[in-house]
């Protein structure tokens, strides 16, 4: 079973990227040289770097203090605050960009379609990654280390001199991952008319049908993402994913900060979650005709079906790979982790180009090309890595000695996994399924390249309607998409809370 999962992983996730690397490095001919020397490249590189660095800095500036607040300030209903503050990361970034475009504040009109606007939008979507990484890192600190500081220093000094240096690696790693996600993003720069590598790859392939140019443009971005993601994964080590919140032992609690912290958190939630949704609601209220909505029913059904099937396939493969990773030796485990983070970091449009390169050929590979299977392959390529990381972390919480006890009692491996390990992974599997579903449902950059002619998912439909449909109709579809995304997450969160309460 693990062998089959590994084969599926190699075919679906590794092959497209490997194909691109081999093709690009092998074709170091005039096409690539021309592109490399192209003066447009310098502008692209600058824009892409600024987008990544600006987003990483701004998202960390917003998210890290929020993480400190969640870990160290005794807020009321902290779980609800965490859920609301973390919710923006569930919104597809292009939906937030859509809200930004429809903001309607005249004094901002010059900035609507600009690089700073893209930075702001992406930061408001991605800051929860920094927030959660900081909070988790703080909760993992041995409280005794801070208590030892409190004996001799004020809480503020302990925070600065003991606590923050210990969480710095996690904060930096989160910033690097945000950088990678920002430079990999297609929908936001596309919508806000910012020229970056991902939009150029899309234009080169989808508009100009210049496959060589698309591949040539893909390489610098691929290398950048791979290097940065590898550094981030190595920095985090075993702390990359945690599935269990530590016991709340936080001796450094800033009670005096409660009110200002609450105001700050409310402000961020307002800007990042409430404002975009309210803008979309305001726009959607102006709908005069439901034609575009009714005309999108196929896309909606398609998205739901494909995301559900995709999430199920993703989790099936990931549970096997995650188990193998969790039970491997430390060196293999960390190497696998780096590989998985790197694969997740590959930009969506690049994955799309890679998938087309692999599957757009004569049978047998070509049988799948031009069908909905390509969308499923897109979801697998993009999201098996992150689901594997989640399930590997979940499996690590199941002690090896439990399996050993089963083995010495005469129970075979398959029965042990089915009867001992998997039942303890129920919550992890459900969580991974929800994450995979949410990501697949909102996926745009790869889907838009590989979707068969005449077929669309809801994100593709929204993106293509933006140019020639009243904003009210697009806003309505975007709200519908947001609702579909939040519902399973809210349901999962409610179930987990009920279990914990019991």
């Amino acid at each position: 079973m693990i062998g089959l999962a590994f084969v599926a992983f190699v075919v679906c996730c590794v092959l497209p990227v490997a194909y691109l690397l081999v093709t690009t490095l092998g074709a170091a001919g005039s096409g690539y040289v021309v592109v490399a020397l192209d003066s447009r490249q310098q502008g692209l590189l600058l824009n892409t770097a600024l987008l990544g660095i600006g987003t990483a800095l701004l998202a960390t500036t917003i998210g890290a203090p929020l993480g400190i607040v969640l870990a160290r300030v005794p807020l009321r209903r902290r779980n609800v605050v965490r859920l609301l503050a973390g919710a923006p990361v569930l919104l597809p970034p292009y939906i937030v960009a859509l809200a930004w475009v429809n903001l309607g504040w005249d004094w901002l009109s010059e900035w609507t379609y600009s690089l700073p606007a893209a930075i702001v939008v992406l930061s408001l979507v991605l800051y929860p990654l920094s927030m959660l990484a900081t909070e988790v890192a703080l909760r993992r600190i041995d409280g005794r280390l801070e208590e030892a500081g409190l004996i001799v220093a004020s809480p503020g000094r302990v925070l600065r001199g003991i606590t923050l240096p210990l969480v710095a690696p996690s904060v930096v790693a989160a910033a690097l991952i945000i950088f990678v996600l920002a430079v990999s993003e297609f929908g936001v720069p596309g919508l806000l008319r910012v020229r970056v590598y991902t939009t150029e790859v899309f234009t080169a392939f989808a508009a100009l049908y210049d496959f060589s140019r698309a591949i040539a443009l893909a390489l610098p971005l691929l290398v950048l993402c791979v290097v940065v993601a590898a550094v981030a994964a190595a920095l985090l080590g075993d702390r990359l994913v945690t599935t269990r919140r530590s016991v709340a032992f936080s001796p450094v609690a800033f009670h005096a900060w409660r009110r200002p912290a609450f105001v700050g958190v409310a402000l961020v939630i307002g800007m990042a979650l409430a404002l975009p949704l309210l803008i979309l609601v305001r726009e959607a209220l102006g709908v005069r005709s439901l034609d575009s909505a009714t005309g999108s029913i196929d896309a909606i059904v398609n998205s739901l079906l494909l995301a559900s099937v995709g999430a199920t396939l993703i989790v099936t493969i990931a549970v096997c790979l995650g188990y193998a990773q969790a039970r491997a030796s430390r060196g293999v485990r960390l190497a696998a982790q780096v590989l998985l983070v790197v694969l997740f970091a590959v930009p969506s449009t690049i994955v799309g180009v890679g998938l087309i390169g692999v599957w757009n050929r004569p049978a047998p590979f070509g049988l799948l090309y031009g069908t909905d299977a390509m969308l499923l392959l897109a979801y697998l390529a993009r999201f098996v890595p992150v689901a594997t990381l989640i399930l590997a972390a979940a499996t690590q919480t199941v002690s090896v000695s439990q399996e050993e006890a089963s083995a010495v009692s005469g129970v075979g491996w398959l029965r042990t996994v089915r009867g001992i390990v998997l039942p303890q992974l129920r919550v992890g599997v459900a969580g991974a399924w929800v994450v995979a579903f949410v990501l697949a449902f909102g996926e745009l950059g790869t889907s838009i390249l590989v979707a068969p002619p005449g077929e669309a998912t809801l994100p593709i439909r929204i993106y293509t309607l933006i140019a020639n449909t009243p904003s009210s109709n697009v806003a309505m579809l975007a709200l519908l998409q947001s609702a579909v995304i939040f519902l399973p997450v809210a349901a999962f969160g409610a179930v987990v809370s009920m279990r914990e309460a019991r």
Partner: protein
Amino acid sequence: MKAAAITLTDVTKRFGSHVALDSVSLEVLPGTAAVVLGPSGCGKTTMLRVIAGLEVPDSGQVLLDGTTVSAAGRTHVPPHRRQLGFVFQDLALWPHLTVRQNLDFVLGSTGLSRPEQERRAHDALALVRIEELAGRYPHQLSGGEQQRVALARAIVPEPRVLLLDEPLSSLDAELRADLRSELARLQRALSLTTVYVTHDRKDAAVLADCVIEMRAGRVLAVHCDRSRRHDPA
């Protein structure tokens, strides 16, 4: 008559329905070593944490040198202003700081001049005989060396009271005996008011001017006799 260095008056501390300290009253005189003896879960560590200000008593009072530092549900003096030294059971050495930096962090809160901080750090390291380890990180030290660093860090600000929570529990018997004698020597040399929590009677035999026996959150008996202390070696 000189005020007691530490006074607990009817101190009670609950964790949910569990009563960790049940109307505990005791005094520790200045310059003496009190050893709190009792089985696991009897409230020894909680008592130490209440004295340090890391836990707030639900009722009763805690006084240091006659000044109220905690009373029922309220902290009058926060931990970092109580002028204490604390050696934790798991030592709690800061992993990202070297031995010397662990001490410097403590001295940074004293408000002393730089030369005075240097002197104190040097003296503390010399007192516990680890001058040559100043540049190392905690993970590079043996168990016994880490123990000495924890002790140096606790005494470097010249506290008025030293609290030790089963500091030798993780060491082997031979090392334990060595460090026990070392602690006794330091306590006498510095005339430091010390409260030492342990479940090992040998610690009491070597260290104690007074032995406080606890069980189930209560003080059962207090035996004070300075002549009881002897060096088992």
